[in-house]
């Protein structure tokens, strides 16, 4: 009889849930999609179960924080996972989520809007560069094995009413109204705890849009950190739940809860990301015309590893090869995309192309002539 024994792995002990998969970084971690494939990439494959992720969207003129939450709910609803939405007017919030278009073909090419834009901006390039792959700033919907993990939602489609009614009837969607009289944060935590314990066979997504808004009453910085810390602790105990939280715009700024507020929020959760839209700052919009805001990563989930899986597996962050890429987001007619931030071909704005000084013109005449001849040959 051989003395070798098969080493037991964590994989065998993990339960199988719909639309979850094992993290590439650890076979003890199950991950699920946030509904946005590029955000999944930033997280290192997806949001790990038992983790909480906070989005701070400090811009008061837009609601990108809420939009990310809608994707999170839509992905859960379409994946057959349970959802618990905490906040005010939660039923209206869920009724307004995006959905998969009827005409949508999976793995479809880029949207029409983007194609039209490309056609108008198409430039003639040298033949030797024509066969080069197009420079990509984001990632696709498919994973490395070619499996679809994140569903192709379209912002132009709305969820059918019957889908929500059916989910509510089956108790797949639960609402906790934070605006109810006397519902303190500890009672909200109690409601979430009940939901987590009710059914452990299906993953539970806890969605909290606008934490700290007027509906939550006079929530102090201490109260909010206690809530986030307790929620994190609660989720660590239940391996089948995960939470996505967006902070209200007024408390998403670094100065709201005293010095180092966003750092504190980062420590109180498993992941924290700031998505700052450009709407309040036209100067930034003109510098980055292709984007709608900047993305700043404070912390990323690492439930069973020393460093976040994202450090090794995120294509967009690009830490595997060099320093971290700058990230931004844009919201097209059809979807929200997180992508790398680059200056355009000209190296920035058109303002950089300043006319040459009169004295310098004479000296550069010959060079300019040569360039013209070269370009004629090329094109």
């Amino acid at each position, binding site marked *: 009889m051989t003395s070798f024994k098969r080493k037991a792995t964590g994989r065998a002990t993990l339960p199988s849930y719909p639309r979850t998969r094992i993290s590439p970084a*650890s076979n*003890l971690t199950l991950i699920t999609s946030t509904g946005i494939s590029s955000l999944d990439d930033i997280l290192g494959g997806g949001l790990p179960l*038992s983790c909480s992720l906070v989005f701070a969207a400090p811009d008061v003129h837009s609601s990108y924080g809420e939009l990310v939450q809608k994707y999170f709910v839509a992905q859960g609803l379409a994946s057959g996972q349970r959802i618990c939405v905490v906040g005010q007017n939660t039923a209206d919030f869920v009724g307004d989520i995006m959905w998969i278009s009827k005409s949508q073909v999976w793995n479809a090419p880029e949207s029409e809007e983007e194609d039209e834009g490309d056609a108008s901006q198409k430039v003639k390039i040298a033949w030797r560069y024509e066969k080069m792959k197009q420079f990509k700033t984001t990632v696709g919907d498919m994973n490395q094995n070619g499996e679809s993990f994140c569903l192709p939602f379209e912002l132009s489609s709305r969820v059918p009413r019957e889908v929500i009614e059916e989910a509510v009837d089956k108790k797949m969607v639960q609402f906790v109204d934070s605006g109810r009289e006397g519902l303190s944060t*500890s009672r909200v935590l109690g409601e979430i705890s009940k939901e987590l314990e009710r059914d452990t066979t299906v993953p539970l997504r806890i969605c909290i849009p606008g934490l700290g808004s007027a509906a939550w009453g006079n929530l102090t*910085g*201490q109260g909010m*950190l*206690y809530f986030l*810390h*307790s929620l*994190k*602790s609660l989720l*660590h*105990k239940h*391996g089948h739940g995960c939470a996505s939280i967006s902070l209200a715009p007024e408390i998403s700024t670094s100065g709201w809860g005293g*010095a*180092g507020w966003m*750092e*504190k929020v*980062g*420590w*109180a959760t498993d992941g924290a990301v700031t998505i700052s839209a450009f709407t309040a700052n036209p100067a930034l919009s003109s510098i980055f015309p292709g984007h709608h805001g900047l993305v700043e990563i*404070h*912390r990323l989930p690492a*439930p*069973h*590893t*020393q*460093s976040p899986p994202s*450090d090794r597996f995120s294509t967009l962050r690009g*830490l*595997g*090869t*060099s*320093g*971290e890429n700058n990230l931004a987001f844009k919201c097209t007619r059809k979807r929200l995309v997180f992508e790398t931030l680059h200056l355009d071909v000209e190296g920035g704005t058109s303002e950089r192309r300043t006319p040459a000084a009169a004295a310098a013109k004479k000296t550069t005449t010959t060079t300019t002539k040569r360039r013209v001849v070269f370009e004629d040959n090329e094109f």
Partner: protein
Amino acid sequence: MPGLFPPFDLPDGIVLLITDQLAAPADFILHRTLAIHLRERRKPSSLILSVSEGFGRWKALAAKSNLNLAHHVDAGSLEFVDVLPEIQPTADRRESLRILIKRVQVCLDRAAGPALIILDDISALDWIGFPLLDLSRFLRALRAACLKANATLIIRHHIVTPGEADELFRHLLQISTYHVEDRPLSSGRSGDVSGEISLHPGFSVPSDGVKLNPRNIATQYRLADTGPEFFAKGTSGGVL
């Protein structure tokens, strides 16, 4: 007997303050110290006062060092206390801190060999509303209990405003023997260097203390699956 805190040659029985920042968490120091303590010491005894991490993560990371924490819990060489559920906002907070001290005392009384006490996040208690006076009394009691039993005490504190020392940090410096500072690179995140650690003296450092490691010659590290790889500044794989 190998030291508990490589690459620094620190002795046992000290009060070690570890500070870190969000971009370079010092979890790895705590996990590695526990692994060395349980593996290298004879009849070890340890207590984790965990404020911010669940036992699942401690277990998973210890398993990567071929250490079965569940086995150590069963054997009595490790006790894990999840601090947060014991502290409710409505309850008497001072009393709950007293209960924690009693648990530490019981662990130290029971210890047959060298003891290690880890408090993984004192800052969270400050941020969720514990008065500074109660926390400083708690820390003083904790330090006194550990020094009396010749146990090693590790306390982690998060720095959220680098360059501006907060009140709790000042108090922690006063009670600590050494201070290990974990900082991210000022140039931002990198795939080759995860952060840098330096060693400073605390207020109660002995005159014949160990060699310190100031910030200008801080040791850099890269976090891998199995633990950190330390190297001198400017000698990472990406540089050479």
